[in-house]
């Protein structure tokens, strides 16, 4: 039911059950608050959101966050009494927490620039608004934080102010805290544990250009799913903030992964690559120290959205003084991959540049030769050389973790013909590209070829670089072979163009020479299905059936069929025999 009330002389509509603050916000009237959060029950603690409410001829000063809107109510948000109250409350808060920017700014808006009283503790940040308490208890259900003591001695913390295992480290309290008074302190050993450089939030868009651009919930990070798992389903309704705040009501916790059957005219296989598994090159001691990271992990570390907000830090939380970057990890090596991954040299150079730029650390690049072909690449290489990066020509041979935690990198400097060893704080492994581990499965699925390295084979390396031997299936990007971003984009554009060319034609011309099953003879043994390189045969009603659009008429199935039920059209036994007879007539 809709109700009407007046806010600062302006008539506004409200839903029953809404608070004055909610109505005012909708009407564009600003009311300052510190202890309010739309996802939490209002507490009415900070008293900043006070307004004057005139009802049934009675005027009173109330907190708008707790006051339910009622029909005919007259609300005034900036009377002298209201302004004086807010100002005094801000004076009191600023005197409590003189160094909190949020309060400083808010106080300045009300003309308070200096705290009128001396603070007991100038570093105090907590204003006891109770948002964290409500989030921890009402939303997360972890029941870790609460108030203790009373009056001026009131504090917030876990029971008896002791460390507790009940804290699930969800960080909900830090998110709702208006003054930044809560920090999550990770214990050292936990810092780089499990998924050190994983997603920063439990809800994220899977990748930047995702279509449709719909966020997903990481159930391992989501408070609700974590609490559900932790309590064996007993606590099923923890958090739920996203659902509460989503105006489109698009959040559905019951959604499960599902398989969709879609009929399409063409498929572009763009399954990408996998990072080389650094454990396969044990000489580099990956996993033995948190400061030995892969190139991809470095990207996350250096990203402003990453765990350190873009600061390059070691696991000890300090900027490294020296960094070694090892090229060709898992590439150009007969023990791992023989091929060159093409991108590692350039990204290693970029990372060397970033480390120099952000930390000024000494950088040592261990390389066999720098592969910088193409526009501007060589120039970049030269620039990095000028930035003072030490280039050591010779593949990094071994990384060992020293007792003091430092990392000793050994290699051969081919220019000097001697063994070198440097002690560094961080090692970045320039891991190469490998095919996806399930590439063989995918290749079977689409009937496309797969090389020894696992990359899919194109129909022709020069003339048909995006097509496959299966009509309508195209390749794009690194699933076909290592390539960098510009090459990938070009490759993908080519695939898209091929697809468009196919689809705009409207019809497909196929060769009349296809295989055909004689259903009378077919016993449904299915031997023909796996041998077909084009996945053109399927079992329909217990018998084999050839999809003429896919069949290339290669005849493998014809030769395989034990009951002679498959014939290759235009190459039937009779036709072949007749041809042979025709040829032999002249003999």
């Amino acid at each position, binding site marked *: 039911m809709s109700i009407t009330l007046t806010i600062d002389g302006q008539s506004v509509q409200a839903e029953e059950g809404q608070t004055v603050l909610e109505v005012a916000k909708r009407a564009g009237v600003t009311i300052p608050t510190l202890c309010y959060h739309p996802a939490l029950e209002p507490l009415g603690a900070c008293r900043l959101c006070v307004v004057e409410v005139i009802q049934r001829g009675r005027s009173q000063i109330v907190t708008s966050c707790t006051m339910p809107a009622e029909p005919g109510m007259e609300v005034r948000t900036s009377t002298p009494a209201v302004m004086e109250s807010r100002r005094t*409350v801000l004076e*009191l808060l600023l*005197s409590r927490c003189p160094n909190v920017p949020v309060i400083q700014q808010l106080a300045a808006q009300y003309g308070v620039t200096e705290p009128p*009283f001396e603070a007991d503790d100038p570093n105090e940040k907590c204003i006891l608004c109770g948002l964290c308490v409500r989030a921890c208890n009402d939303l997360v259900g972890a029941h870790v934080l609460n108030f203790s003591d009373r009056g001026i001695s009131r504090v917030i913390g876990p029971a008896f102010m002791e460390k507790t295992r009940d804290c699930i480290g969800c960080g909900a309290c830090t998110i709702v805290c208006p003054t930044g008074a809560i920090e999550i302190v990770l214990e050292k050993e936990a810092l780089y544990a499990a998924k050190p450089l994983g997603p920063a939030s439990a809800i994220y868009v899977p990748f930047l250009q995702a279509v449709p651009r719909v966020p997903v919930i990481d159930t391992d990070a989501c408070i609700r799913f974590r609490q559900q798992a932790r309590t064996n389903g007993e606590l099923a309704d923890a958090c739920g903030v996203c659902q509460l705040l989503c105006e489109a009501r698009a959040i559905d916790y019951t959604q499960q992964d599902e398989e969709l059957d879609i009929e399409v005219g063409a498929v572009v296989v763009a399954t990408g690559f996998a990072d080389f598994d650094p454990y396969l090159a044990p000489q580099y001691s990956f996993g033995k120290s948190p400061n030995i990271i892969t190139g991809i992990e470095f990207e996350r570390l250096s990203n402003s959205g990453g765990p350190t907000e873009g600061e390059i830090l070691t696991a000890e939380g300090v900027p490294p003084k020296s960094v070694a970057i090892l090229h060709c990890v898992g590439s150009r090596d007969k023990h791992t991959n023989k091929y060159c991954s093409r991108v590692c040299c350039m990204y290693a150079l970029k990372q060397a540049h970033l480390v120099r730029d952000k930390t000024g650390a000494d950088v040592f690049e261990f390389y066999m030769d720098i592969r910088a072909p193409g526009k501007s690449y060589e120039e970049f290489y030269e620039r990095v050389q000028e930035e003072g990066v030490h280039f050591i020509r010779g593949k990094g041979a071994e990384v060992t973790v020293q007792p003091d935690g430092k990392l000793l990198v050994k290699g051969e400097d081919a220019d000097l013909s001697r063994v070198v060893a440097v002690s560094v704080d961080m090692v970045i492994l320039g891991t190469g590209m490998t095919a996806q581990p399930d590439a063989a499965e995918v290749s079977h699925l689409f009937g496309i070829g797969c090389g020894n390295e696992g990359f899919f084979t194109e129909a022709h390396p020069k003339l048909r670089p995006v097509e496959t031997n299966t009509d309508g299936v195209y390749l794009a990007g690194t699933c076909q072979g290592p390539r960098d971003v510009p090459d990938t984009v070009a490759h993908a554009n080519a695939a898209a163009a091929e697809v468009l060319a196919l689809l705009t034609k409207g019809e497909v011309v196929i060769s009349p020479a296809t295989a055909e099953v004689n259903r009378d003879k077919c016993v449904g043994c299915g031997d023909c299905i796996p041998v077909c390189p084009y996945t053109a045969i399927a079992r329909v009603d217990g018998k084999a059936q050839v999809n003429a659009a896919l069949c290339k008429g290669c005849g493998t199935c014809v030769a395989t069929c034990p009951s002679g039920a498959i014939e290759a059209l235009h190459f039937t036994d009779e036709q072949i025999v007749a041809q042979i007879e025709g040829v032999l007539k002249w003999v």
Partner: protein
Amino acid sequence: MVEYRADVLVGCEHGEHPDLVGALKAEIERRNLGAEINVVETGCRGFCAMGPILLIEPEGIIYCAVKAADIPEVVEETLVKGRVVERLAYQEPVTHQRICHYEDIPFYHKQMRLVLRNCGMVDPRSIEEYIASGGYSALEKVLTTMTPDEVIQAITVSGLRGRGGAGFPTGRKWSSTKHAHGECRYIVANGDEGDPGAFMDRSMMEGDPYAILEGMTIGAYAIENVREGYIYVRDEYPLAVENLRLAIERATEMGLLGDHILGSDFSFHIKIVRGAGAFVCGESSALMQSLEGSVGEPRPKHVHATESGLWGQPTALNNVETWANVPLIINMGAGEYAKIGTTNSKGTKAFCLVGKVRHTGLIEVPMGMTLREIVYDIGGGPQEGREIKAIQTGGPSGGCIPSHLLDLPVDYESLAEVGSMMGSGGMIVMDDTNCMVDVARYFLDFLKDESCGKCTPCREGIKRMLDILTKIVTGNGEMSDLDKLERIARTVQRASLCALGKTSPNPVLSTLRYYRDEYEAHILQKRCPAGVCRDLITYNILEAKCTGCGRCLRNCPRKAITGERRKLHVIDQALCIKCGICKENCVFDAIEVS
């Protein structure tokens, strides 16, 4: 039933002389008078200044300040020979006349003891004594002759208002509880009295617990669909808890509580919930939170407890004194009751008269009696040579009423008008030795710890007002501090969440209003006119009066006094901590505070 020739009522059993009853019983036993004379341990008789008190019935003889050593004489003279022991009788302070019958003592004479009628007159542990003095006749009348609506009607007509301090009409509260929608309804008695110097509720719970139970039972009948009631008592009142517990047990045994009360279909149970002594739990919403087992913190009251209180159900919460008034109204008749008091404040009110008066104690007066009558006639006026300066009512939430307003009638509206409040009944009399700035500071210091700390103005505001007052009493105040003080006080009053916060600046605002000159003396002249604030006073020995007896020298804890015997003694100001012990000990009045 055994009949006795005489009853000896001992009302201060838990005072400083717990051996009084034992001594009395032993003496009676020794003289083999056990069959004739009955010793009754009663609740508080209220005349604290004169305690321990012995009342001998049926003669109505009162003995004051009785010690165990006096017992043999009392038994010998009064109980055996029928003579009055003059030296133990009350002595009128001005005429020095001895008064031996308690009704003749001005302290009792002017009072109207209705709610407190049984306190100090019956054994609070005996339901029989309560019934014998007319108890449970109101419940019987209600259950047999009145409908629930008629009971509410009677309470409404009587004009009874909440005795906890706010003065909300009780009839209206019951009626809205009754008409609110809920699965069931609850009633609660607030016995969380926490004001410094107040003990009315305690005396009632200890001295006449059945009246409270009876009042609640009548309330439960009237409001209907009330199966359970709660009495919230602070655990610092162990005797109150004990007596109430016993009373509930006995009343249940007698069929006056529990299932099928007096054989009717009406059932009602009462439970005691012990509070942990937080002042804020006297606030209704905090009390109910505490009852529910949560931390006692007030919540915004946009929905009244009568609609959604305890466990979200309609709840009628009244002070124990309000409940104790209920049987009285039923017995007297609402019309008769309404004749007592003023137009808007009906009935009587119990007060704890304490501070700088001769006769401190628990009193009950009709509404509308003037402060002067209370302080001078009942309280016996100021101590010798002193002058009354102010009356503080309403505890930390109330204000100080200056002496020129002594003719103010005591009722809800008049007190609020002058910046104080009725409160639950604390009444502290102050004389010219009280510094009003220090008084305001004292109450803020109390509230600083008792505020729950939930909302900013109350938590931080009280602290900062206290900071300013501390600055002033230590001689560091500035005139601008007064404006600051007033501004914070106004905001705390306006913007705090609950009544505790909203009323917390009252001691400051009322003293600023009436005693601004004292504040200014502290700030401008760095002088405490009352000679209280230690940083602003010095103790000096007057040459003219000092005899050199050495008493001050011996008692000084800091050895700050020097002087030879029979010669003038001197206080070393550098060592003096201004404790005042020398002044207390000087028999020649030779120590001056300046």
